[in-house]
């Protein structure tokens, strides 16, 4: 079998610095959203973990290289892109799962509201009946 020559793990230094800055801004953005209640803690941890692992990969490109070699990818950058795409797929599926759970919760609320509405309506009808003044009825008899 032909062995593909493998490139040594390398990310250009400017790119490395830019990515680390981007990850830092990403963390600050997350904490900002969290503070202003636009993100819930349980989902925050997920994204923080992603940022953290990305940071590790950028700082230690050997990891990227190793994973890339496993699936036969030559360059470090290509391996990084594939890994990022894999991350996004996993995040995508987990978001879809969260949405699915929410959908079924909304459905349950919808069904319960429907039953509750009926009970309130029946109570209102009963109240209306007992509130009808007998004077009206006597007028009809005239």
């Amino acid at each position: 079998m032909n062995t593909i020559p493998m490139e040594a793990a390398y990310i250009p230094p400017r790119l490395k610095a830019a990515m680390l800055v981007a990850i830092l801004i990403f963390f600050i953005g997350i904490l900002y959203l969290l503070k202003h209640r636009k993100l819930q803690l349980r989902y925050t941890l997920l994204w923080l973990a992603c940022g953290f692992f990305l940071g590790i990969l950028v700082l230690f490109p050997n990891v990227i290289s190793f994973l890339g070699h496993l699936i036969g990818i030559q360059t470090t950058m290509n391996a990084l892109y594939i890994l990022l795409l894999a991350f996004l797929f996993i995040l995508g599926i987990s978001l879809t799962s969260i949405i699915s759970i929410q959908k079924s919760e909304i459905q349950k609320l919808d069904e319960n509201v429907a039953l509750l509405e009926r009970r309130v309506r029946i109570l209102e009808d009963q109240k209306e009946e007992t509130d009808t003044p007998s004077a009206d009825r006597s007028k009809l008899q005239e």
Partner: protein
Amino acid sequence: MEAAENARVLIMIAAYNEEENIESVVDDLTAHFPQYDYLVINDGSTDHTEEILKRRRYNYVSLPVNLGIGGAIQTGYLYAWKNHYDIAVQIDGDGQHDPKYIPAVISPILKDQADYVIGSRFVTGEGFQSTAARRTGIRFLSGLIHLTCGKRVQDVTSGFRAVRRQSIREFSRHYPIDYPEPEAIVDAIMRRERILEVPVVMRSRQHGTSSIRARQSVYYMIKVSLDIIVCRISYGLRRGQRETGKAE
């Protein structure tokens, strides 16, 4: 602060699948403290809890969708706020918390000595002390909160708590979902509430298995710790101002 005699107190009992315990918990409470109002929050129980609540005509709300202990307790705070209670007390629906300690837990608030009172197992070391593994975990979390927030609280997972009106409003709007017991303490510390631990003796869970209190596994510990750290960071570098006076 309202005069002690006029203070309206609500006892909030969160219950998830507590068909075996809920009657004794509520009866115990109403027998010894009929002067306190209470509310059972049925967190979408799938057993006969709701039927029991209905049959015994207890004061309860039933959540159509299970929210977990955080959401159930928040529902209690919402009820407490909308019904103008001055003090809200959390107790568990499994019988671990003995109602006879309720006066001890609310008294510091009535005397305006504290804003957030926790009934702690570990002050005197009496009664049900939980397993050694859990105690280690609790000690770790206590240390973590001390490190990040500067306040030493021993029993960070105790669900036996009393809060004052300002906290009722705040908690009815925002209450931690995932690990409410330690996180609510972080919230209280960061809002500069005066926190006090009062010794209580807890009983072991009477029947059934615990589902609300998560089991102490390493994974759980990591998640709670991260939650506490991130929660603390989200408050920024400085602590906020303590609210004084009447809440609106």
